[in-house]
């Protein structure tokens, strides 16, 4: 198993009466893309701020790249790249100038043009940052995080406010980081983002980590029951319920069967349908999505 780049034990932080973090344990290994999921106000940014060295903790142990971020010096800062939740870049400098400026702060920066290429801003290299769209400005922000060629990157909600195509582009950039061998800790409240990018996910709610795992395993998702659904056939609907055993439910003119053995259930179901000459319109087999699991875990009605 690769070494832990981030190791957190029992991390606590309060703002006055409010306990923002109530004892968090976390390990992020080298080369991993790790996603922090959670509703707004769950403590994602507080936790990441402690790991970035911006915020002092009240208790627990935190080690990032072998050092305590609260006491880390400039060499450590050179090994960590970050995208903050909100940051407007200097509007009066061009994309290239911005990166040249930040490159000067690091001992071994990445080549400026290559970095611009990596985030897909080559055509905008000589445009002032103030003229870029929101998504492009965020990509410039990511480029600044990459320019120091840091081994560990903190990305706090890197795609919030993006349109769908800008998000896809940003995902490609983050995927590219995996190929560069970087370790990435990102926060998001988009399930599809975590599903698409993350090797492992931790769900945080009310200051506690309530589940950790791969996106496919989270909350026992791999073993969870599947749901087979189809439109209520015109003929004998009750006959199906009798013929195929299982946990049935119906809503909005469709029937659903919850089953731990989807292949067997499907076989029985389609066998019955063919034998009785019934068409099963809109037949679907679904496993619970990451979003379903997340909503169940966090107990929220709707994702944000």
């Amino acid at each position, binding site marked *: 198993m690769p070494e832990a780049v981030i190791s957190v034990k029992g991390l606590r932080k309060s703002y006055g009466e409010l306990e923002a973090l109530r004892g968090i344990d976390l390990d992020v290994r080298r080369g991993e893309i790790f996603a922090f999921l959670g509703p707004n106000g769950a403590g994602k*940014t507080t936790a990441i701020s402690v790991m*970035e*060295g*911006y915020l002092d903790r009240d208790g627990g142990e935190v080690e990032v790249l072998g050092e305590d971020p609260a006491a880390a010096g*400039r*060499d450590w*800062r*050179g090994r*960590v790249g*970050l995208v*903050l*939740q*909100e*940051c*407007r*870049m*200097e509007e*009066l*400098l061009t994309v290239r*100038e911005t990166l040249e*400026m*930040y490159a*000067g*702060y*690091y*001992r071994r920066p990445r080549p400026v043009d290559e970095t611009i290429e990596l985030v897909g801003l080559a055509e905008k290299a000589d445009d002032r940052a103030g003229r870029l769209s929101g998504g492009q400005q965020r990509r410039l922000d990511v480029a*600044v995080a990459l320019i*120091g060629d840091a081994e560990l990157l903190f990305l706090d909600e890197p795609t919030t406010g993006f349109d769908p195509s800008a998000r896809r582009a940003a995902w490609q950039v983050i995927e590219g980081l995996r190929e560069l061998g970087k370790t990435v800790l990102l926060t998001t409240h988009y399930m599809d983002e975590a599903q698409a990018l993350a090797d492992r996910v931790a769900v945080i709610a009310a200051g506690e980590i309530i589940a950790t795992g791969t996106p496919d395993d989270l909350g026992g998702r791999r073993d969870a029951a599947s749901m087979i659904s189809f439109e209520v056939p015109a003929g004998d609907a009750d006959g199906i319920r009798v013929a195929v055993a299982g946990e049935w439910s119906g809503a909005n003119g469709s029937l659903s069967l919850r089953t731990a053995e989807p292949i067997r259930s499907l076989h029985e179901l389609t066998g019955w349908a063919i034998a009785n000459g019934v068409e099963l319109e809109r037949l679907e087999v679904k496993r619970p999505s990451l979003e379903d699991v997340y909503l169940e875990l966090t107990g929220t009605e709707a994702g944000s």
Partner: protein
Amino acid sequence: MSGAALVLHQFRFEQKVFWRSPAAVFFTVMFPVIFLLLFASLFGNERIDSLGIDAATYYVPGIITLAVVSATLVNVAMRMVEMRESGRLKRLHGTPLPTWVYIGGRIGNAFVVSLLMVVIMTLLGRILYGVTVPTETIPALLVTLLVGTFAFCSLGLALSIAIPSEQAAPPITNFTVLPLYFLSGVFVPESEIPDGVLAFASLFPIRPFFQAFLTAYDPATTGAGFDWGHLAVVVAWGVAGILVTMRYFRWSPRQG
């Protein structure tokens, strides 16, 4: 990069941003030029008997004071608030760049712009109004300018801490300096200002800086032109600004 090279690196980008910012160029460069032309043309030939110089000779160092305070205190305060509230200051704090390099680049920018304004004002005064160019007192002028740049940049940093948002930066900054320009005799010759008001203005740094600059600029001044008494007041304000800055400086925006 070494420390000095890094300051120069930062200074280059500070310069780019300054000259591309219409507000900074207008208020720091154009505004003083317009004021000098206005005041010196209207009152330039009047004699200020208490000082024994004509008004044009008085206004050149007066408007230089305006330009220097604008290039230093006003600019630094506005930029620092923008840097902090945009999240860039916090981001910068996350890089290996030493803080003093960043501040050094900004002060370097303020000094170069101030020096440029001294040259422009001096040339305008000489060409348009025949104001004598001081030559013997150049070291005193430079030292006064350096002391002023340091003090007013440090006060700009301190002031930026008290400003809660970008929207509040222009009114708070202007409200701080504009009354002092009037009370300190920058716009109105000091012979027109009651003694009590001048004494009050002398408690603040703009008036003593102006007096030190006027001493070095006055053709009647004999000797090297160092006005140590007034410079000491300016330095004291600068030190106070540093102490306040070191005690209360914030990297992060108010929200988040």
